[in-house]
């Protein structure tokens, strides 16, 4: 009879908070924003969401099978990537675009690096940027919201940020929409990606994550704070040319990015100091690209660029260990 007792190295208890639970909480946090975008954009939004999510899970299972690894769908990370990708797509995206995005996100963004935990770039953002550069037309055709049951038809229109860029380029002045309509921006009644729309729903999800301690405050606060401060400086210098910082905050993907994409643990720094630097860098690059760059929206690029800098930030932001300062003195 063999000894059935377990022997192991200490400690012998665990908090019970496992990776799949963490991922599940992030998915819960995204539910309000997802529901609201389905309300505003109707069935097309739902189909993009389903294609992206199921696509990501399918490609994850496929690549695990190809590499003869255990199929890791249970950790929920593929589904999360799918939802985040969908939230980064225009509601009018054709099905093949969404599917292609899912393939890029999982295969190139994640699995070639060895799967969960090893990808240096946020997979959903990799997919979004690849699509944006490869299919600029499809990725920038926006529709106005047509809430379920309102009987409205979705009309092609521009996002507030896009309109602002065009107006500034043509007239050198901000368009009317940069000064008003903030209530619509807050609830999400505007054109944009699925997840860019409702500030309130995103904030709700973000607060849930902060409350559950899935994310720490450092990245969102540094990110949003930097955008607000730099936005405010430009606005104070020339309110004719540069928009109100609130406009920066409520339109585009800033809240989605700051609360859900930049806080992706795998691709952001691990130390608090590093997270502050990371958030600051994201904010700075976002404002610069929005105000001066060729693309109307800079959140995705800013986060990807800071993802690239993450190994360096980690390297130079090691926490000071206990007793180290005294040892040197």
């Amino acid at each position, binding site marked *: 009879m*063999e*000894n*059935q*007792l*377990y*022997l*192991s*190295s200490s400690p012998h208890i665990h908090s019970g908070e496992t990776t799949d639970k963490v991922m599940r909480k992030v998915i819960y946090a995204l539910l309000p924003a997802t529901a609201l975008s389905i309300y505003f954009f109707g069935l097309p939004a739902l189909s993009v969401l389903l294609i992206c999510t199921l696509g990501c899970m399918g490609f994850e299972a496929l690549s695990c099978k190809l590499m003869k690894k255990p199929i890791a769908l249970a950790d929920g990370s593929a589904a999360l990537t799918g939802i985040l990708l969908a939230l980064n797509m225009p509601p009018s995206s054709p099905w093949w675009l969404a599917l292609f995005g899912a393939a890029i996100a999982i295969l190139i963004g994640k699995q070639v690096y060895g799967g969960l935990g090893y990808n240096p770039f946020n997979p959903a953002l990799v997919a979004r940027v690849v699509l944006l550069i490869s299919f600029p037309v499809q990725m920038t055709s926006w529709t106005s919201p047509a809430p379920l049951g309102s009987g409205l038809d979705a009309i092609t229109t521009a996002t507030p940020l896009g309109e602002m860029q065009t107006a500034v380029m043509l007239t050198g002045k901000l368009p009317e929409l940069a000064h008003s309509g903030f209530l619509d921006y807050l609830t999400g009644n505007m054109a944009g990606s699925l997840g860019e729309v409702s500030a309130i729903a995103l904030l709700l999800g973000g607060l849930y994550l902060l409350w559950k301690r899935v994310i720490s405050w450092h990245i969102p606060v540094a990110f949003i704070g930097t955008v607000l401060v730099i936005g405010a400086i430009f606005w104070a210098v020339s309110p004719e040319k540069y928009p109100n910082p609130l406009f920066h905050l409520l339109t585009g993907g800033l809240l989605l990015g700051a609360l859900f994409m930049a806080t992706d643990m795998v691709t952001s720094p691990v130390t608090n100091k590093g997270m502050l630097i990371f958030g600051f860098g994201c904010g700075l690059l976002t404002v610069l690209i929005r105000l001066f760059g060729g693309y109307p929206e800079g959140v995705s690029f800013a986060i990807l660029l800071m993802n690239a800098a993450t190994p360096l930030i980690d390297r130079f932001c090691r926490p000071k260990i206990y007793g180290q300062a005294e040892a040197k003195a």
Partner: protein
Amino acid sequence: MLASILTLGGIGLFAAIALGIAAKKFAVEVDPRELAILEVLPGANCGACGLPGCGGYAKAIVAGSMAPNLCPPGGAETIEKIAHIMGVEALSSAPKVAVVCCQGDNIKASLKYQYLGLEDCNAAQKIADGPKNCPGGCIGLGSCVRACPFGAIEITAEGLAVISRVNCTGCEKCIATCPRSVIKMTPLSATTHVLCNSNDKGALVRKYCQVGCIACQICKKVAPESYTIENFLARVVYDSAENAEVAIEKCPTKCIRDFASGYPEGSSFAAVGPGTKPEQAA
């Protein structure tokens, strides 16, 4: 045309002169033999010579601080080439391979406890001296697999390390990492080995392992020249092991194996003939 030839030629000449002067004035000695030796070394930087890499070894040979026969992966051919470069007589070193002297996988050898934690033999060994009742047997968590720079070791499905005689270069890295010294260096020419590493008495070995050496002396009786028994464990005497195979059939616990006729159970390696070292996969 002339202008172009002259200007380009002029620039070239000026550069040549400047470089020529600099080469004389700022010359730094590098022994050409060092480069030549580096060329013939395998370049795996495995560290079997005791230095961090092939470059360091090349430097050390030229400096005379190390002998040229300390590169097991390179084999005789490399030694000869280095010796040729250095102009010294080659020292012979018979090719050796590492052998895991254990067949007690998780089915054949009993467990002392259920191990939970890091998949590493050294880590498991620290917990109550390892999860197997046998104090010398292979733990099978693959520390040697990770240590092997040549990918020559596999762990079978039932948790036993097996070393490929084709891919092993004799660098001894696995021996350095194994917490139980269950891996031994043996001459490549010898294919028959006693695959047990327990110094416990036969009665105790029988309790925890189906394929352990119980020191019954039968092998020594059948082939007295080929076997010795020390500390309740039989070993092949490789210097005089002409007829070691004859004992295989007689061994009651089947702990003697001729690798020429097959690797231990569960291994994916294909048996190779005695003494030969087939072409290594490129």
